[in-house]
């Protein structure tokens, strides 16, 4: 079928929902999502949303901005960080007004707690800035915004997967989507497409991400010739459940939990003497691996312990009940009594589709691509620089989702009316037909597991040229093998076998892009740690990486970082 809308938003996590709520009533808006909206991965965010409300103790948005810039190891574009921090209190009040059930203080105001890298007075000590609803903050915000879109009558196409962007003369004119329930390909004609497709942590073996996070938005933008920015910066969250990668929120440490190594030592005192276990995620993940390498993992193995026994059963039940239940279910242990084995887990992509603060996607010359917007984790502002602070992600989604919504409305009348190409679904229809007709070939799952292991071994917390180069060769071999993938399911209904085979291309393509960007950056900054290039090198590398598809091979170039208030300094915590 052909559907016509002014604006089509791809992805129904918080960025997509917030943008839709801004645009509804002013334009015909539709949301498409590969999962039911309330299954979106924003719902897995646990710890909180940052805003300098100052409910618990003095705080200021300038301190929040500084923390964001320092946390990003000075790769953060400071104009974006300023918008984020300054707009945060308004954004949180707005969520409260919509009904988000934040935890409360005795005086009835929103409760706040400490979080990694959040400090008072430019790094003096930890500050309580994270607004939260127990340890399911993302989920309650997702539910609230989803029911709000229902209330506003926004058209939602659930379980529709974007497979192609429709473009003509550089302008985006819609997309092609696959309906899971029927197997039909549909054409969405629109004047604007907003990509809000989230991250793609599924390129790594150990990840806190859901199965849906496979990066179609990033990959289709890249295929369309749009450069991707800062793709080497991949966040590993320090506390994933050992062996499973399930997230244990930083809130566990914000509420008083500590990390201990195999010798029972609170090792973060050595790495971050001021804020210790509340250092940013890049530093803690690196510290955990240093401990493991020095033989101080638990029992000499590849994990350390998170100690929440100090919190007591009441606080665990009230403030951290979801993670208490996760470790009970999956590890059979009681965090009130037992230590939790943890290891870093791939959590967030700092890089992505370059945009300005209004969500307009930027081409290689920094000009907006007509008709294409991006917001949320798939976009790169670059707000999080080389390492995102906890609680800045939920905030990013609602602050910049809203701004993208406003700009789309402003832009709508300006866009030239171009006719879309005839039968835009032809290319993808052919690909699907070829896949379904192939009788014998490689299994998607085997190739996917191979790339996930490669990325984990060579491109996770520690990186060096030899490993990255070896990984690149292997990825290219896997890309060749992926051309002969065969599937079992040739039917039309709920054919996730087919979709997983199609997703494999983006997983492999994005892995290649991460590795190429990581190989090129010969310094260590934030989450990108090159063992062969230790230390940050501002003279040569205080710049954003851009990688673009060209006819010959991916081209890498750079653009400057926006520095307004805070000059780069050595990071100490």
């Amino acid at each position: 079928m052909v559907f016509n809308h002014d604006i089509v938003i791809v992805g129904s996590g918080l960025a997509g929902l917030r943008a839709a709520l801004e645009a509804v009533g002013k334009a015909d808006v539709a949301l498409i999502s590969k999962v039911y909206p309330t299954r979106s991965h924003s719902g897995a965010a646990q710890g909180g949303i940052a805003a300098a409300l100052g409910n618990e103790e003095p705080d200021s948005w300038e301190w929040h901005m500084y923390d964001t810039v320092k946390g990003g190891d000075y790769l953060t574009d400071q104009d974006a960080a300023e918008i984020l921090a300054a707009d945060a209190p308004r954004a949180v009040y707005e969520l409260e007004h919509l009904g988000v059930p934040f935890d409360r203080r005795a005086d009835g105001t929103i409760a706040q707690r400490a979080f990694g890298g959040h400090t008072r007075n430019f790094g003096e000590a930890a500050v309580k800035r994270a607004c939260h609803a127990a340890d399911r903050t993302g989920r309650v915000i997702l539910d609230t915004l989803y029911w709000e879109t229902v209330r506003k009558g926004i058209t939602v196409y659930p379980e529709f997967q974007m497979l192609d962007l429709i473009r003509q003369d550089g302008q985006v004119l819609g997309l092609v989507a696959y309906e899971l329930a029927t197997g039909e390909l549909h054409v969405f004609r629109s004047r604007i497409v907003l990509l809000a497709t989230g991250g793609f942590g599924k390129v790594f073996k150990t990840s806190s991400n859901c199965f849906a996070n496979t990066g179609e938005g990033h990959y289709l933008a890249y295929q369309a010739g749009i450069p991707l920015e800062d793709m080497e910066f991949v966040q590993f969250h320090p506390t994933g459940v050992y062996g499973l990668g399930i997230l244990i929120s930083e809130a566990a440490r914000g509420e008083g939990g500590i990390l201990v190594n195999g010798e029972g030592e609170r090792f973060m005192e050595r790495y971050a003497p001021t804020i210790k276990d509340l250092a940013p995620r890049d530093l803690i993940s690196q510290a955990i691996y240093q401990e493991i390498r020095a033989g101080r993992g638990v029992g000499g193995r590849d994990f350390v312990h998170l100690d929440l026994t100090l919190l007591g059963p009441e606080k665990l039940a009230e403030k951290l009940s979801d993670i208490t239940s996760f470790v009970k279910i999956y590890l059979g242990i009681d965090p009130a009594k037992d230590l939790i084995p943890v290891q870093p887990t791939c959590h967030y992509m700092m890089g992505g589709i370059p945009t300005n603060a209004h969500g307009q996607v930027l081409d290689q010359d920094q000009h907006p691509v007509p008709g294409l917007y991006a917001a949320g984790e798939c976009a790169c502002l670059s707000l999080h620089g080389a390492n995102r602070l906890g609680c800045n992600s939920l905030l990013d989604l609602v602050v910049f989702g809203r701004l993208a919504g406003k700009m789309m409305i402003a832009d709508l009348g300006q866009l030239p009316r171009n006719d879309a190409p005839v039968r835009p679904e032809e290319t993808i229809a052919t690909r699907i037909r070829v896949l379904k007709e192939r009788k014998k070939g490689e299994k998607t799952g085997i190739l996917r597991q191979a790339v996930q292991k490669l990325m984990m071994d060579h491109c996770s917390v520690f990186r060096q040229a030899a490993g990255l180069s070896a990984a690149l060769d292997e990825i290219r071999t896997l890309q060749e093998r992926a051309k002969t993938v065969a599937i079992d399911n040739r039917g039309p209904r709920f054919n996730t076998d087919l979709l997983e085979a199609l997703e494999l291309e983006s997983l492999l393509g994005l892995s290649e892009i991460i590795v190429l960007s990581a190989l090129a950056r010969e310094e260590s900054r934030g989450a990108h740690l090159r063992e062969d290039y230790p230390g940050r090198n501002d003279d040569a590398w205080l710049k954003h990486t851009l990688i673009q598809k060209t006819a010959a091979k991916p081209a890498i170039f750079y653009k400057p970082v926006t520095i307004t208030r805070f000059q780069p300094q050595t990071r100490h915590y």
Partner: protein
Amino acid sequence: MKMQFKIFRFDPQTDKGPYFRHYSVAAEPEERILDCLNRIKWEQDGTLSYRMSCAHGVCGSDGMKINGTCRLACQALVKDYQCPEVVLEPLPVFPVLKDLVVDMEPFLEQIKLLQPYLLAPAAEPEAERKQTPEERKKLGEVIRCILCACCTSSCPVNWVNDKYIGPAALVWAHRFIFDSRDGEQPARLRRLDQPDGAWGCENHFECTRVCPKEIPVTKSINQIKQEIEKKLR
């Protein structure tokens, strides 16, 4: 260890009727039933359909009947199924679309009818509305709902009466009836004061037993009934 599975298969468009297919798969005791399903799908039979996403009980996608009990495949561990065969079936009550995938629209529709959003008195303050920790505590259990539909699928009343609004919708009603910031409590209560509303609940406690988020569902429904008696009589 080797696990034996008997899995419900049905494509309403092409199959004469539902049938079961048997699978055998290697699994570690600490693994999830969802891990087994994925292994079956990825290595043996790509035609199998089911929903899943977060794999740790947050998104609510993979509700299904496992050996007769509705629960999330990602919260069920292999070690707890020391039986000759694990039987996987779709959630009852809802129409099957394919294999373990059911139509969630009727489920969501029931909740949408209840206006699951805050209907607050007009003026919004500049900052947050005030709510005491005690007032907020009344919502602490019901906001754990992840819309997995295990409760509604397990309710014996829902099995025989498709008009009954069901436990999940009542949990969502509770979430707003007892939110001190909401201004429409009387209307919300009136809507539920009917035989297929809150009074449809017969206290079977099946919802409470199966809820993967340990929400005291039956208790919450009874609080609604008490509130109706208190405020509307």
